[in-house]
């Protein structure tokens, strides 16, 4: 059985937000309007978080650059952290759902069934990555936007939780095609919209259990790390980084950034 997972190379990510836009259009993620955005109710299945690193390398403020052309500048550096749902192997949200509206599928996708959700928001409270969003208002697509709605994805109603499903509607189609032709799903046949759209090719997607897939090798590389690993959620989305910025960001990231990651 497959275990779908993603690897995001943070050294490649330029923070262009293409994944965010692709995800919004693919999954009919609703607009929340001005008022709700101010209250922090904007919905982003995939969000690119900016991490501010105060000093980089050994460079101190005011000192001239050691060698011209290198990246060692004195000011704070920004790093980008794209955050889809982590699709944990032991998801806290699934444990707390009282109506089993969210389940761990057999191939590793943390599913949300919006028609079953009662909107109690326990899962939202339990998610350590804050990857779940509540629909605070009925979705409205004004004018021609209605024609841009993706018919493959249901439109969530008022009062239900929604989250990244790794574009499960694409998996359903790919599985069907593969079954019809009596073969396994190919690596490039099923990729979520964010992976497909990334212009820097920072994201890799595939089956973590299949050693032929690139994602399985990347997830085991020494560069790989997972967010909040110490919680024991075993995320299936891993990150790659080359430099020491992870440890640096741990040291230098202020309380506000940590808060944003932790929710």
């Amino acid at each position: 059985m497959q275990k779908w997972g993603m690897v995001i190379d943070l050294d490649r990510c330029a923070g262009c937000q293409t994944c965010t836009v692709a995800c919004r259009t693919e999954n009919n993620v609703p607009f929340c309007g001005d008022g709700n955005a101010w209250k922090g109710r904007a919905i982003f299945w995939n969000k690119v978080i900016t991490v501010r690193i105060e000093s980089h390398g050994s460079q101190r403020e005011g000192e001239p650059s050691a060698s011209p052309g290198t990246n060692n500048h004195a000011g704070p550096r920004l790093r980008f952290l794209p955050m889809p749902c982590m699709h944990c192997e032991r998801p806290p949200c699934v444990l707390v759902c009282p109506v089993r509206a969210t389940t761990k599928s057999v191939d590793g996708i943390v599913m949300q069934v919006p028609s079953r959700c009662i909107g109690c928001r326990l899962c939202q409270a339990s998610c350590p990555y804050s990857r779940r969003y509540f629909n605070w208002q009925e979705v409205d697509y004004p004018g021609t936007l209605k024609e841009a709605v993706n018919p493959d994805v249901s439109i969530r109603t008022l009062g239900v939780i929604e989250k990244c499903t790794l574009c499960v509607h694409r998996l359903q189609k790919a599985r069907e095609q593969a079954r019809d032709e009596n073969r396994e799903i190919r690596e490039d046949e099923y990729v979520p919209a964010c992976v497909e759209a990334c212009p820097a090719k920072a994201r890799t997607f595939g089956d973590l259990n299949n050693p032929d897939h690139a994602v399985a090798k990347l997830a085991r590389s020494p560069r790989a790390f997972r967010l909040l690993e110490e919680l024991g959620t075993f995320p299936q989305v891993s990150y790659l980084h080359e430099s020491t910025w992870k440890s640096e960001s741990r040291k230098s990231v202020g309380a506000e950034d940590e808060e944003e990651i932790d929710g």
Partner: protein
Amino acid sequence: MMRRKILWVCWCGIIGAMGVPCRGAGTAQPIPFNHKIHTVDNEFPCDTCHRYVFEKPFAGLPPTDLCIQCHEDDITTNPAAAPHIQTIRRHAKEGTEIPWVRLYVLPKTVYYSHRRHAKIAGLECSVCHGDIGRSETPPARPIARTLDMDHCIKCHVERKAEYDCSRCHR
């Protein structure tokens, strides 16, 4: 006594108002299509008219072009069908589609594929659609509620098919 009479009239009105649109929904086909003549007497398989049943998620309703291929000539001997044949020809002449009413509508949170069930799993149409293929008139009552999730799960358990949420919900 008077008050009771008024209440009684109101009650009948409410029941009547509820009943009328429900009954209309099932019988409001533009043509009272006779499945039996086509599938039993003439032995057409279902995918003659529901053309995408083995290829696509949806089975498809017959377009006017398909009807007119046979009904351009006077092949029907039944005089009761004559006005309906005229309706088909009128639609063909005007280049419009016959406004068939879909009887089976699933919720939008469900991905149901005819190809997966009819072709890959090889199920008979009657497993879900019952005897509609041998009916002589459109059903008198709406049949939208006959297919719910219990129906799906029961069959999936019986046939040992997967019933993971991610397979159908989206």
